[in-house]
């Protein structure tokens, strides 16, 4: 039995320091690594991300042992959380700058937000609407605003995989979930109480005694 230890994947992109700080603040054991052994020895894996889809995918392919990761997540069912671009790369492919293949763990594609007259990127605090009940929302109550910085969003193929959406010009998927694989379009590490609650729920849901 693996004790609770969160591995934050380090592939040279994104807000790793603040994700690390918040997990530490929640008093969980946490390591930043892209090492196969650390991935195997951890109970949860988090993939942060900032930047464009193609460059994130390229860095992931170059720096992360994908065979090992897919074995742990897809075959063994280890809980996984992708944040922002880390969520978007779960798709089959992305259309940012150029069409680019994603990890393909959750069906769908990543496309530019359709926002009408609103400015892009979508930056700031915005609330989520829960589409499908999940234990990840335990205790969320009235604090439903999260912090976003993005111009693209995940068009999920199977609507059963959408837990929440957010409105900015139109609705986009803000929380995706397929079995043990979760994705947040917002930055929970920058979202104070609400962000910390979802992170804590994600970890607690799969915590082994």
């Amino acid at each position, binding site marked *: 039995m693996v004790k609770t230890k969160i591995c934050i994947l380090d592939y040279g992109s994104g*807000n790793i*320091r*603040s994700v690390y*700080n*918040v997990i530490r*603040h929640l008093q969980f054991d946490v390591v930043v690594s892209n090492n196969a052994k650390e991935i195997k020895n951890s109970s949860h894996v988090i993939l942060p991300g900032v930047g464009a889809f193609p460059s994130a995918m390229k860095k992931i392919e170059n720096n992360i042992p994908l065979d090992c990761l897919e074995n742990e997540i897809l075959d063994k069912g280890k809980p996984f959380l992708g944040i922002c671009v880390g969520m978007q790369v779960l798709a089959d492919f992305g259309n940012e700058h150029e069409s680019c293949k994603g990890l393909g763990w959750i069906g769908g594609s990543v496309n530019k937000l359709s926002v009408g007259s*609103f*400015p892009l*990127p*979508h*930056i*700031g*605090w*915005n*609330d989520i609407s829960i589409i499908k009940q999940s234990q990840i929302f335990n205790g969320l109550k*009235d*604090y439903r*605003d999260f*912090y976003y*910085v993005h111009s693209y969003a995940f068009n999920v193929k199977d609507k059963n995989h959408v837990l929440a959406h957010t*409105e*900015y010009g139109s609705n986009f998927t803000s929380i995706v979930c397929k079995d043990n694989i979760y994705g947040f379009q917002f930055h929970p*590490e*920058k*979202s*104070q*109480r609400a*962000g*910390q609650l979802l992170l804590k729920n994600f970890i607690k849901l799969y915590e082994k005694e």
Partner: protein
Amino acid sequence: MKKNRLIPIVLLKDGWVVQSKDFSQYQNLGNPVTTVKRLSEWASDEIIYIDISRGDKYDTRRNDQGYKNRGSFLNIIKDVSDIAFMPITVGGKIRTMKDIEDRLSSGADKICLNSIAINDTKFINQASKEFGSQCIVISIDAKKNLDNHLVYSNGGREITNMTPDEFARIVEDNGAGEILINSIDRDGSGSGYDIPLIEKVADSVSIPVIACGGVGGWDHFSEAFEKTSVDAVAAANVFHYTDQSVYLAKKHLYESGFNVRKPDLIKI
């Protein structure tokens, strides 16, 4: 729905948090990390952290508050980002792309440019291409000059021939993500925002504009949201003297029906 923001500004001089009046008088308010911890606990939507030191000496002498003495501004940013679970904008003394990179890698989410943006508009363009528009905030200092306002550079010491709305359009065209408009006349006055100035700038661009300068009470925030199209309201001095200031200001706006996040108090 996307929320309007309430943003405390923290001015740092030689490693200390200070209060500013007329851009020239400064009063010491204490340790930068302790200050940010409080602002984080009061659920600020984000903070703007500006280094207004003239030299390179950083000294946070008092160690009795549990934070060690850090010798550089970048180390102070690192300490601050460890306890701020919200976005941080960092400004002051940014002259090169490397300066931006250093601040972002120390934990800043956005950076704020002032004099360099006036002296070299191409720099805004270059920075927004390299790091993305979302992390480039341009702060514009303006002062009333006969009938209209003019932009000032170098901490309010040098006059330019541009009006703030002209300059706002230039920075938007060059890829800036947000504009912080500050009235030098109202700085430290507590008499409220320069509404005509803020309105003119907010109406001249489509990127988010943050109002700054002159807040003395919570109603001044309401006034900006009522009378102008600003996306966010900011202030510095007014947040330093009342316990739970940001929480109380947010509560005032929330209960008056403004589109802000629900007020909150967090233990950090």
